[in-house]
């Protein structure tokens, strides 16, 4: 059984010999990459954006607006899907050689559905952020109340102790 050894460490480890005494004598790490980069032969970009349907070559079946009514469009796409499945069943019975067009339409409906759902994700991220911030504000208010209460109680205890000492 052949096993491969681990690759050796990169040769520039020698440059960091005096790092513990003088941290600035060793080279800085490379700056973060911006734009496109190549990783294992594939091209990746640093900007994560959802490619629009036209770029993928799929016809867009819901109206392109700035504020799409997601619920209505999802429901109507669902009905379209059901109708197309029924059509496919009919085509398979009557004219079995024409299935390819129907299947193309069904797959484009699926792609539209998934694209709509993916475009809901940024909105979900914003809603999650709002929820987390509200929780944090509530926790901070709680902490302020706790500290106030403890301070008052500590002052009360000190006053009581003072009174007790005076009364002796």
């Amino acid at each position, binding site marked *: 059984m052949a096993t491969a050894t681990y690759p050796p460490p990169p040769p520039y480890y020698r440059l960091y010999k005096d790092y513990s005494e003088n941290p600035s004598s060793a080279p800085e790490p490379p700056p973060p990459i911006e734009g496109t980069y190549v990783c294992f032969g594939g091209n990746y970009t640093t900007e994560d954006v959802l490619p629009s349907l036209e770029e993928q070559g799929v016809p867009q079946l819901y109206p392109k607006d*700035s*504020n799409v009514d*997601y*619920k209505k469009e*999802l*429901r109507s796409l*669902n009905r379209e*899907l*059901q109708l197309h*499945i029924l059509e*496919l*069943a009919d085509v*398979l019975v009557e004219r079995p050689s024409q299935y390819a067009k129907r299947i193309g339409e*069904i797959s484009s409906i*699926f792609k539209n*559905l*998934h694209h709509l*759902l993916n475009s*809901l*994700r*940024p*909105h*979900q991220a*914003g*809603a999650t*952020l*709002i929820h987390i*911030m*509200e929780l*944090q*504000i509530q926790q*901070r*208010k709680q*902490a*302020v109340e706790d*500290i*106030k209460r*403890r*301070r008052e109680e*500590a*002052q009360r205890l*000190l006053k009581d102790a003072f009174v007790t000492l005076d009364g002796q």
Partner: protein
Amino acid sequence: MDIISQLQEQVNSIAAITFNAFGTLQRDAPPVQLSPNYPEPPATTTATDDATAFPEQPKQLSADLVKAAKQFDALVAALPLSEGGEEAQLKRIAELQVENDTIGQELQKQLEAAEKELKQVQELFGEAADNCLNMKKPE
């Protein structure tokens, strides 16, 4: 699982039901006569089991499909899309940030005052303890 992932899973399961349904029906269908020129297909081969269970399959499969579609509609109805759009969300986030900052500053102030008082109490306590120890000299 969050609602959008559930919706995506539901879409995928609708697709799975569809292709499973068509595949099963195509695989299990009994042979059919294409044209009157060809002889009748031999009907005695496997007519026993298939003929009983076969008409039930499309009914079950279509019931599954309709159920999955209804489930999808129910999930869509459960989407919490209350905000009017992206600008409303961004405005709300900015408001929350401002409120968070003010509360954070007040918390910081209270914390500093409490720490100061704690230090004072600790010093006083140390002095009182020293006095107690000094008064009780071993004779």
